[in-house]
């Protein structure tokens, strides 16, 4: 090393810094640091071996550094390390992600063997923070829990985001259906953006990656132009955050608050989930790992049904005032006669014969429709190193056939990942991480569309054995047989529903995705105290969807009984539709970091960086003519459009450039201070407002360092206090500044008038009012917390209290259409989230025989409030939802409160009924229900280990919060829901009801009866808002690792076998007899709490084997 012109070079650097912006760079006064030239007398060669305290396996890649110097190395595949020449009184620091860092004084020893302890959540581990900076956890002034690979994989969840559920406090994950294609939504510390994105930023190896959820099958045009999501007819193709193979993940750090994530800039105002993928380690011999998992799935929850009344409906009252019923064999309604068990004809008459069955309840006909889902997940990985290179290569496949009958719901995911580093010279290191994902799937439509399997299934009367009708070649079940006149006919009993088996076979929702994510970095380290990193990341994918809906016209086969009329035709015009989403996101970061020990007690590090980001999204939606569909059945191509094809395309590009800096100061490894600052310039804001600056500060005080000598250190191994405050700015989506004109499209709900109209072109005001004065939105947050390690790391406590306030939110709000517009873009809205997070982990039992019991739990309580909308005269905005059940942000209420019409109650809680019909009156306007935010979330888990055995169990709960269930609505309508028969089917007096008499007084209702069929088939939508609380047995696993001793003479390095389950058992309150409250028709989008006949969630269980060579 040459003599450094320390001050001169630092001066040059500081000029650069001053040029940038940092107002609070402390004056660097004369610092010492002549330690490089200090003379010491005793130098030693030290070597040793590092093993894991968990299983005594050698640990590779453990960083071993000499305290107070920059000398360091890492362990090889056998856990060995060595130094040639270090001071005899030096201290070695052993650190590795996921293990407790150890400091070991050399004390003139030459061989030092170390066993690193796995202590999840210990205070002194290394964590990966923003922009892939590795930090000692003790130095962080904010909460940043880490989940390691093995913890992530316990439940063998195919989604790495779902696998976090219950494991980290403050994280709200909605896993929807828990199928491999299901979207997962991850929100940290509550939603803060009223209409924007609320999900955490997902960062893989330092590169922010796309986590879009383009909802399948919803109206692309309106979703793209208004940002609003229509949950009514959707196919869940999943969101992009789930593309990554969980087996490739080494660790996930959750940066919960804006402070932690401030350096990522605007997109991290909701926190960040920082994923670090596996890499090869220096000195490691090549290791091959093969892991196979077989998973089976079945339905977790279907509604409770009534089992007393069959097909048909009431047609009037007899002289005694009881219902007279008509058993209409074409009906989906189950409002018919009481079930007698009598064997009788049903369905259509074909060739003079009707089928017979007992008129009795088919108690499990819905549940038995589903089959056992199967999935095989294989990963092969190679990790190793050369002299100056490391690599990790993994290949994985996931093939699944879901819980729907036949093999029509498929999801296949293939991943190839390569991570490599090369030391190019002493000063340069290059790194590359590349992942290619390929997904192809055919999934099933939910909601109320004509192809919705679950919707048609639910509309099955209680006596119909629908689960026995899968043989479509049987003329009584199928479609397309010819009658005497040569016309195609259907033999299926129902005229208003289509056989779900027919839908599964004929409606296709195909998806394929090709995605490449990559990061490329060059590190240049010209000096010991200076390094420069240039990193470029890209996330590019094409997501292609093809919707193929058949064209057909079938007449009822039965022309004899008169039950079926020729009008009961089953007919569709057919459709071919293509949705293409091309997303490209390119990120560049240039970071210069200087480190210095300013005095013997104070160390400093200063980083400045430059960030560029560009996101391009190109969307196209093309379909055959939306009215007349296809010409030739079965030919799915736009050329087969019967009339002009429908086209929509949109291109958007946004750019952002930012400068950022971080200054870290530490005092005696006890007191730490981080200051960050960032300025962004965004393309999406008006010129005058496009630049915005935001700082953060955080401090950590490792107070236990001061108590090392006292008796308290027997109890308190480590302890720290932390505090932070931060601001994060956020820009808008592109093109929100102006009001535009669009091609007219007059949407009647069913049927649309489009332009050109018979050759005449037209134009119309687009519904959204733009805002040329848009400002960036700003989130301000602070948090305080503590982390304690007690009883020699046997117990760990992490507690935070936080408060986030977002203001000047950029909102596109629906407005009264009396204004002539449908929505407008505004800055407004202060939303506050405050809450506490508590994580506790303890090992009450650990015996010398290797038995250990670890218990852990989390508790999260977030209070969300819309403080002020800052809109004159406006106290509420609608966030979307359905027109008759909106989700709103109303001042003083939690974000995401449901708002709609309910039945009318008086001030004593009695129901006010109509004085003629006896049916409850509706509220004259919309009323508030709860919000979808839970009151609290909690989890409880245990890990038991004994020698090679491991057992894990995890429960989690969300308590409070509401969801809207169309599943309930449709089975109420259909007369199959449990409550439709609770008081029988004859007219009765609505319980606890009153009516208004002639004197305009409310009198107790004892005599005005209502017909349940009229009431339940037409409920106000507010009746479908139900309690979303649940407790779930989230994960159970049992694994066995074959002891090394038994593998000695085999080629295997390691064999682990296990059984597991996830999403296993669900407990819901009495009010919810309908659905898993986690399912959400709008996937991971901002529209939450909507079960719009979403497909039921599934229970997953199976076994896995992992072998390494």
């Amino acid at each position, binding site marked *: 090393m040459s003599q450094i012109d320390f001050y001169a070079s630092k001066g040059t650097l500081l000029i650069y810094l001053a040029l940038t912006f940092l107002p609070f760079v402390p004056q660097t006064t004369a610092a010492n640091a002549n330690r490089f030239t200090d003379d010491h007398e005793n130098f030693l060669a030290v070597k040793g071996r590092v093993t894991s305290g968990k299983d005594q396996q050698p640990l590779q890649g453990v960083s071993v550094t000499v305290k107070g110097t920059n000398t360091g190395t890492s362990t090889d595949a056998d856990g060995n390390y060595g130094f040639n020449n270090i001071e005899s009184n030096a201290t070695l620091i052993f650190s590795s992600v996921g293990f407790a860092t150890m400091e070991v004084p050399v004390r003139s020893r030459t061989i030092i063997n170390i066993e690193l302890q796995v202590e999840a959540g210990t205070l002194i581990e290394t964590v990966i923070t923003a922009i892939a900076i590795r930090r000692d956890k003790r130095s962080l002034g904010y909460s940043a829990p880490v989940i390691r690979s093995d913890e992530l994989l316990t439940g063998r969840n195919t989604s790495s985001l779902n696998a976090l559920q219950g494991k980290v406090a403050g994280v709200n994950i909605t896993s929807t259906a828990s199928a491999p294609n299901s979207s997962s939504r991850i929100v940290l510390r509550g939603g803060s953006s009223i209409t924007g994105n609320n999900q955490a930023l997902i960062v893989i190896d330092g590169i922010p990656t796309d986590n879009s959820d383009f909802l399948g099958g919803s109206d692309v045009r309106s979703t793209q132009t208004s940002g609003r999501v229509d949950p009514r007819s959707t196919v869940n193709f999943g969101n992009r955050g789930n593309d990554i193979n969980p087996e490739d993940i080494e660790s996930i750090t959750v940066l919960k608050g804006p402070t932690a994530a401030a350096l990522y800039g605007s997109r991290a105002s909701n926190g960040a989930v920082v994923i670090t993928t596996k890499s090869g380690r220096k000195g490691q011999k090549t290791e091959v790992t093969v892991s196979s998992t077989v998973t089976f799935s079945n339905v977790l929850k279907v509604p409770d049904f009534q089992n007393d009344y069959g097909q048909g409906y009431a047609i009037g009252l007899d002289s005694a005032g009881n219902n007279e019923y008509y058993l209409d064999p074409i009906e989906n309604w189950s409002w018919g006669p009481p079930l007698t068990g009598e064997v009788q004809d049903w369905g259509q008459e074909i060739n003079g014969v009707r089928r017979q069955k007992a008129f009795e309840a088919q108690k499990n006909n819905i549940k038995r429709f589903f089959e056992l889902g199967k999935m095989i997940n294989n990963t092969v990985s190679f990790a190793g190193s050369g002299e100056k290179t490391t690599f990790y290569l993994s290949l994985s496949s996931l093939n699944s056939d879901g819980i729907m009958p036949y093999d029509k719901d498929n999801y296949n995911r293939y991943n190839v990942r390569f991570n490599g580093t090369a030391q190019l010279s002493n000063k340069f290191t290059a790194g590359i991480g590349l992942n290619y994902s390929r997904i192809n799937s055919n999934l099933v439509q939910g909601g109320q569309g004509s192809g919705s399997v679950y919707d048609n299934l639910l509309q099955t009367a209680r006596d119909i054995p629908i689960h026995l009708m899968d043989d479509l070649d049987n003329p009584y079940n199928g479609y397309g047989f010819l009658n005497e006149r040569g016309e195609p006919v259907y033999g299926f009993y129902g005229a208003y529903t289509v056989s779900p088996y027919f839908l599964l076979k004929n409606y296709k929702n195909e998806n394929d995705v090709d995605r490449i994510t990559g990061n490329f970095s060059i590190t240049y380290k010209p*000096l010991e105290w200076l390094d420069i990193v240039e990193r470029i990341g890209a996330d590019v994918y094409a997501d292609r969807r093809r919707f193929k809906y058949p064209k057909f016209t079938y007449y009822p086969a039965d022309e004899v009984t008169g039950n079926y009329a020729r009008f009961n035709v089953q007919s569709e015009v057919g459709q071919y539709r293509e949705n293409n989403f091309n997303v490209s996101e390119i990120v560049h970061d240039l970071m210069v970091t200087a480190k210095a020990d300013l005095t013997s007690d104070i160390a400093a590090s200063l980083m400045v960086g430059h960030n560029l980001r560009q996101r391009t999204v190109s969307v196209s939606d093309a379909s055959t003519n939306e009215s007349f569909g296809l010409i030739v059945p079965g030919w799915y191509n736009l050329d087969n459009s019967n009339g002009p094809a429908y086209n929509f395309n949109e291109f958007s590009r946004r750019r952002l450039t930012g400068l950022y800096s971080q200054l870290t100061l530490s005092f005696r490894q006890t007191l730490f201070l981080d200051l960050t600052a960032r300025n962004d310039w965004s393309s999406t804001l008006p010129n005058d407002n496009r630049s915005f600056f935001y700082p953060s500060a955080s401090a950590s005080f490792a107070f236990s360092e001061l108590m090392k000598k006292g008796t308290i250190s027997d109890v308190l191994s480590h302890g720290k206090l932390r505090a932070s405050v931060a601001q994060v700015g956020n820009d808008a989506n592109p093109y929100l500044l102006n009001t535009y004109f669009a091609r007219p499209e007059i949407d009647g709900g069913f049927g649309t*008038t489009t332009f050109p109209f018979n050759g005449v072109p037209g134009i119309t005001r687009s519904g959204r009012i733009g805002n040329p004065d848009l400002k960036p939105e700003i989130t301000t947050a602070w948090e305080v917390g503590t982390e304690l390690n007690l009883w020699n790391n046997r117990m760990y406590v992490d507690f935070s209290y936080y408060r986030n306030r977002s203001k000047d939110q950029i909102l596109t709000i629906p407005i009264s259409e009396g204004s002539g517009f449908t929505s407008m873009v505004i800055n407004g809205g202060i939303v506050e989230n405050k809450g506490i997070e508590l994580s506790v982990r303890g090992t009450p039992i650990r015996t010398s025989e290797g038995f250990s019991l670890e218990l852990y739990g989390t508790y999260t309580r977030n209070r969300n409030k819309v403080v002020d909308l800052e809109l004159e005269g406006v106290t509420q905005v609608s966030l979307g939802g359905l027109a008759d059940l909106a989700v709103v942000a109303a001042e003083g209420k939690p974000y995401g409160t449901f708002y709609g019409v309910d039945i009318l109650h008086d001030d004593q809680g009695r129901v006010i009924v109509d004085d003629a019909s006896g049916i409850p009156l509706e509220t004259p306007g919309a009323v508030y229900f709860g919000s979808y935010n839970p009151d609290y979330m909690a989890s409880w888990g245990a890990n038991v280990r004994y020698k090679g055995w491991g057992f894990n169990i995890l429960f989690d709960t969300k308590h409070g919060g509401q969801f809207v269930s169309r599943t309930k609505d449709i089975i109420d309508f259909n007369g199959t829901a449990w409550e439709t028969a609770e008081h029988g089917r004859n007219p009765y007096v609505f319980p606890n009801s009153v009516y208004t008499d002639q004197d305009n007084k409310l009198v107790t209702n004892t005599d005005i009866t209502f017909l349940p069929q009229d009431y339940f088939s037409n409920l106000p939508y507010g009746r479908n808002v139900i309690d979303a609380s649940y407790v779930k047995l989230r994960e159970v696993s049992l694994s066995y690792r074959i002891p090394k001793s038994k593998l000695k003479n085999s080629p295997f390095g390691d064999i682990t076998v296990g059984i597991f389950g996830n999403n296993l058992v669900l407990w819901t309150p009495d009010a919810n007899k309908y659905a898993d409250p986690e399912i959400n028709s709008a996937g991971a989008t901002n529209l939450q709490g909507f079960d719009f006949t979403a497909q039921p969630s599934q229970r997953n269980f199976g076994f896995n084997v992992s072998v390494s060579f």
Partner: protein
Amino acid sequence: MTTLNIKNKCILVVAVAAIAFAGCKKYLDVNDNPNLASSASVELLLPAVQAALGHDLGNPLQIYGGIWSQYWTQSPTSSQYRSIDQYSVTTTAFDRTWRMIYSDALQDIQEILNLTQGKAASNQYTAIALILKAYAFQLATDAFGDVPLTEATKPGVTNPTYTPQQQIYDSIVAWVNTAISLIDVDAEVTPATDDLIAHGDMEQWLRFANTFKLRVLLRLSEVTPQKAAAGIQTLNNAEFLTKDAQIAYSAVGGNQNPLFSEMLELGRTQNLVASETSTKFMTQNRDPRADIFYTRFVSAARGIDSIIGIPQGSFRSNLRTFSLPSTVTGANARNDLSANAPVKFMSAAESYFLQAEAVARGWLTTGQPALTLFREGIRASFKSYNVSGVETYITNSPAAQWPSGTQQQIRAIIIQKWLAMNGNQGFEAWSEWRRTGYPDFFTVSRASALGDDRMPARILYPSSEVTQNLNFPGIKLIYEPVWWDVKD
């Protein structure tokens, strides 16, 4: 490494940063929207307005009007419109009805008025826009009652207050008067093909304006008869419509009759079937239009070949014998000819019947007696669908006879108007029933969930207003009459 090298490196860093900043401004100027247009012109806006009103009139309002005017009823073999026949609709049902009037039509009308303001050369566009504005507001207020008017389509107002119906009617008349004063049948600049209704024929628009004004004023006949009479006097000897003002639809996907396009999306399900109220009356009066508005039910085996309706709201009975609406109304789901059914904004028949009523009341002078106008109305109705036998019908049919006494004459006129509007002007027929109580032989739907023989008297405010407009005045019950509906 030497000091020099380090300095070079540092200079390089600064240089890279400097370049990055220099390019910054341009780099960020990428916020021009390539997906939407920034400007519009009147000839592009006008057809969008007309098509929006056409869709509203031809789809939701035709369905509600058609069922509540008892031309049609829900088929027992399907279920889509059961709630309409049950009178138990909810606010959600009307979101699109409202949107088509306000966001699709009125906003673009406002854009036309903004673009033509102060431009005398564009007066004909201004006039048409004002007429359409008046037309749209009458639809809105007849449907919903009090609606936003003074604060509607007003920049900066996102929670418009509601204007009482009485004032809305005053405004409608004022706009029509202004439009009439602006119309110049010899104007050089007129719309052409962009005017889907009259193709720029300003004389037709003048007739439309006069006829529409007569319709609007007559709507007030029961609530403020003197005001109605005074207003109608200004129309003495004016020119009224003699041919249908309508939009023609075609078989092109997206340009079909709006009712039929709904049926296509519903899988060609035939939800609408003939109501006995209409078929019975037509059969009793040997009305040859029955075969135009309905298809025959034919069953050789059962020896049936006739027009058969089922009782209003009898969908829960097991009836399988009924006629369907024909393609001329766009309501026959199985026959693609339905795509071509026009949507009538006002018809020639309506024009004559309005004149006949105004003359019968003694409020209007046209130079022709009421009886002549009454018969011209019947003739116009037949002519519109090329039905023969009109003179036989006028001579023989009890419903075509001219009674004595003003009230009976009005009854005859309104019933004839109802007959003419079968399946093509359903909403207007229903409004006239609400105003006059004619036809007086409507039956309460068998499926009514209202009880007490109540019948719908308005359509409900949309749920979008309930949940998105802070100045929303409150949901009304479906049987609460609107302001002008005062006759029992």
